[in-house]
């Protein structure tokens, strides 16, 4: 096992955001890729790390530190601006539950659509649809269009379908709070069951206490840089020290304020 290739391997990964004033400027940038657009800033830079199969890793950091950008890069939603990611196996991002759903379609049809997207053939998805609906406690509304669901129902369905097919790497955002206490307990059970089967977990958090239950290793992101990588208690201590300080300005001097672009792209789950 020791010589096994890592499940996730990042090499000098960076992501730059540029505030294009008009979409056409992005097109011009394709033609002159070496010219840095004005006002560009690095949300994440120089991230190099390996995560082995079965590891549970907490990603700590303040608002705007680059946590969500990191997960979006791994999920394949955002392309990196520099560097390289190697990902072994299927990634299940629990970042924006139900974001890809179609409001005009029924719950059952959306299950099939979401399953197709992770490579499950429709016949298999149809067979599992009832189990997914049962888990999401939506069996009685499965035939109605999604636009008539409450946001909590959509999130429950999103969680149920995203975790139904055993992934290799699970990306979880701490703001993942779906449904009532009973449903949350079942979500936690299911994630635990996945972890027992050797699924790799990345858990994004503001709060080291919530990460302790799941993770042994912690990464600390600070202003887009990886400032600590090690055992979770040490990472948590480093985070507590950082959290008390004012934010370090970014190297390119374009440090975005709290709630900046990087952060506004983070998921915000509709809570019931």
């Amino acid at each position, binding site marked *: 096992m020791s010589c096994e290739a890592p499940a996730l391997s990042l090499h000098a990964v960076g992501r730059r955001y540029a505030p294009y004033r008009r979409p056409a400027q992005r097109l011009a940038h394709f033609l002159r890729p070496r010219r840095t657009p004005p006002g560009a800033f690095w949300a994440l830079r120089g991230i190099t790390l390996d995560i082995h199969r079965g590891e549970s890793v907490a990603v700590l950091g303040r608002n705007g530190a680059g946590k969500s950008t990191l997960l979006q*890069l791994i999920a394949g*939603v*955002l392309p990196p601006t520099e560097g*390289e990611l190697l990902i072994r196996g299927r990634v299940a991002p629990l970042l924006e539950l139900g974001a*890809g759903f179609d409001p005009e379609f029924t719950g059952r049809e959306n299950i099939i659509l979401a399953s197709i997207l992770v490579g499950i053939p429709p016949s298999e998805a149809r067979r599992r649809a009832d189990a997914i609906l049962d888990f999401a406690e939506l069996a009685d509304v499965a035939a109605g269009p999604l636009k008539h669901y409450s946001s909590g129902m959509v999130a429950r369905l999103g969680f149920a379908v995203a975790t139904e097919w*055993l992934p290799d790497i699970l990306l979880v955002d701490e703001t993942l709070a779906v449904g009532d206490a009973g449903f949350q307990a079942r979500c936690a059970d299911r994630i635990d069951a996945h972890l027992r089967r050797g699924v790799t977990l990345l858990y994004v958090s503001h709060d080291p206490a919530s990460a302790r239950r799941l993770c042994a290793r912690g990464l600390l992101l600070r202003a887009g840089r990886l400032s600590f990588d090690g055992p979770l208690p040490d990472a948590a201590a480093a985070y507590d020290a950082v959290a008390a300080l004012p934010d370090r300005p970014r190297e390119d001097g374009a440090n975005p304020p709290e709630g900046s672009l990087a952060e506004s792209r983070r998921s915000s789950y509709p809570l019931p």
Partner: protein
Amino acid sequence: MTPSAPQTPALASEKEPRPDAPVARITARPVPLAVLLDPRSVLASLWRWRHLAIHLAWRDLNTRYRGNHLGLLWLLGQPLLSLTVFTFVFADVLGVRWPPGAPADGHVLAWAASASPRAEYAVHVFTGLVLYGFFADVASAAPHLVLWRPTLARRVPFPLETLAPACVLSWLPVLAAGVAVSLAANALFRGQFSLTLWLLPFVLAPLILFALAFAWTLSALGVFLRDVRFVVAAGLQLLLFTAPVFYPFERVPEAYRPLLALNPLTPVVEGGRRVILEGLFPPLVPFGLTTLVAAALALTAHAAFIRAKRGFPDVM
């Protein structure tokens, strides 16, 4: 699935995560052109996402006609309406006539002596309009294919390049309905059935490839340049009147013919009428060339889309 087997509740797969799981490599460098322009890679991608394309196409068809009282009848209603207007203008007001009668060398089952000049004109124009209409529908829908789905473009992993083939797929039933009406009109008004109809797939191949090429190109451009759809509307007018839809190609003055042959729809409309109505073979060499050009265009458009896709999250 023996009932006695112990089961972990609510988990679909009992198998462990694969140690030999496929490796995805995501780099900042764009995909090399050698890979992008390899037809096998495009075909593999189309095949991989075939279920998604079918699902999206079915959804598109469904929402397009959902809530309409006539439902799928609109598939035929629209071309029939334009046919009526254009026949009135060109055949009745301007007195355009189609060259009389079918050529003698056509392979047709014929049971009527001759058709009225008006019916002759109507059937020919209708067939042309059906073929042009398919292209026009795809091209008009293309600019907002990605633009109107911001959540797919920047919040979930989604193969956006599937939207264009799905769009093409969703208009194929409309095309099929139009061709069926053409055949019916040909039988009813001209008393003929074309025996070269089996060549129809070869005539439709370049049409579908052209539509796919434009769908990929326009859907990527539409994200960055929001005025693309106005250009498309104007361009479609141009294509309609420079393709031999309302007039036979032979009526075009010799000097203008090479110019009109540049319109990608010209060989399609001409060839389509030959196999649907006249029982003639499409001219082999020009048609083969057209198909090759269309395939090359589709390949290039796909490559451009994949390259452009990286920029979508920046502007949506």
